[in-house]
């Protein structure tokens, strides 16, 4: 199952903030964690993660520090800040409302009507 692009984009910020709330990580590890959490169903374009992380850094949600990897390469680590935790809590509330609403509407109408073919 492929998740719709817009849905991936909308959930990217809370997901990254949530992952960083578990502990500091670098870019590649964040993506791996996304894969694990979604059972491999949320496929991100890897390159897009970095502009997102830089945006979160500019907004003050995360802090970035340069370190070195086991192989001795330069590696940028990201850590969530207090502002980031607040933003995450806020997003969590929003998503809860959305998820709750969706659950209710699907509960009352469990199956979407079949698409009529041939309408103009």
């Amino acid at each position, binding site marked *: 199952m492929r998740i719709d692009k817009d849905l991936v984009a909308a959930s990217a910020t809370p997901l990254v903030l949530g992952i960083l709330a578990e502990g500091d990580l*670098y*870019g*590649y590890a964040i993506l791996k964690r996304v894969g694990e959490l979604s059972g491999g169903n949320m496929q991100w*374009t*890897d*390159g*897009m993660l*970095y*502009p*997102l992380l*830089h*945006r979160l850094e*500019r907004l003050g949600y995360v802090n970035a520090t340069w370190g070195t*990897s086991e*192989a001795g*390469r*330069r*590696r*940028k680590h990201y850590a969530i800040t207090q502002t980031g935790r607040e933003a995450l809590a806020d997003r969590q509330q929003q998503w809860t409302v959305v998820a709750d609403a969706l659950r209710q509407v699907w509960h009352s109408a469990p199956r979407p009507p079949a698409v009529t073919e041939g309408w103009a």
Partner: protein
Amino acid sequence: MAAHAELEAQIDRWRSFVQRRQAISPADVDELEDHLREQIAERQATGLDDEEAFLVAIKRLGNLDAVSQEFAREHSDRLWKQLVLLPETLNDDDGAPPWRELAVVLALAVGAGIAVKVGFSLIENENVFARNLGLLVFPFLIGYFAWKRQLTAYVGAALLIPFVVLALVLNVYQFSPGGSTELLAVLHAPIVLWLLAGLAYVGGRWRSDRRRMDFVRFTGEFAIYYTLIAFGGAVLTGLTIGAFALIGTDFEPVLAEWILPFAVPGALVVAAWLVEAKQNVVENIAPVLTRIFTPLTIVMLLALLGVIAAAGGLVNVDRELLILMDAILILVLSLLLYSISARDSLARPGIFDVLQLVLVVAAIAVDAVMLTAMLTRIAEFGFSPNKIAALGLNLLLLVHLVRAAWLTVGFLRGRRPFRQLENWQTQYLPVYGAWAAVVVVIFPPLFGFI
């Protein structure tokens, strides 16, 4: 590691490809490379070979255009590159403190100012001062390049000997006061000096067409920077004079005695430094201006030709007009040089190349009309240093333009690479220097210093 040499080479190529994106900074490339290598390592662990792992990793990184667009959206400021005059990090190899260049530049700028000021107060005769002005200023400009390029003694000698010869000629020759050979020498000496500065600029590698073309670019950018500085300076002094006048103090003596003698030569060195410093920072301005002014200059040349045709030729015109038209032709030549220097030599012929050809052909027509007028004048009034100097310059321009037109036609018809047209410009440049040297060194004795 030797087993993975091909992979390393691929990553290197990828790196340099990504680095060309303005929105992605070197630090971002490091970050992306770390990601890429992790991804490759993981693919390799699942049994893919280097090549396959690399391809998968690249694919997963996504379309570079889209990614770089995302970077640009986040870092739009990076598209406006900042001019860094004082690099923050020390250069590892030479360990020079970042302010050293600034200090050298300022010292040379002040030195040029002092030289002019001292020269002005020591040399009573205005004509003698005019002859020596270039000799006072240019050593500082050349000195900057000599310092910057770490010139060898050999190149230093190649610069020093012509300079000394020029200085001797300009001061030992017994010019008759206010004569035309003196005026010609004053006008042509800076050209020789500018080419000497070019020799220093290319670091002595004057045989290299690319380096010569760099010097052409430098000249164009330098002219624009110097004009901008001069314009800014004029606004500033204008405001100061106005303010002082209202207070009741006459500022003009200070301006003439102290500010101009220092500011005008000093700005020369500073402008050269700015062009050097901003080389990789912003797109060059000169090519942008050539795009605007090439069509406009064509219109101007055609109008000029029309007026000349209506007047029935140039035989009876003022010599002032001939001088002015020489200036126009030199402007056309600069336009041609700068647009060629800015063009991607691998790009296919386009509409702008056709426009350029029209410009060159129009210039050839104007030059031909001028040459006819000059020859007629010489036949009627006989030789004079001025006429021969002008005739020589116009012949040089004619050869330059005709060959450029010929090569452009060949390029437009797909028979020749653009490189040939480019090389023609750079190879021909020293001819102007040689001609200027002839006018300075040989004309005065030839015409009896009149």
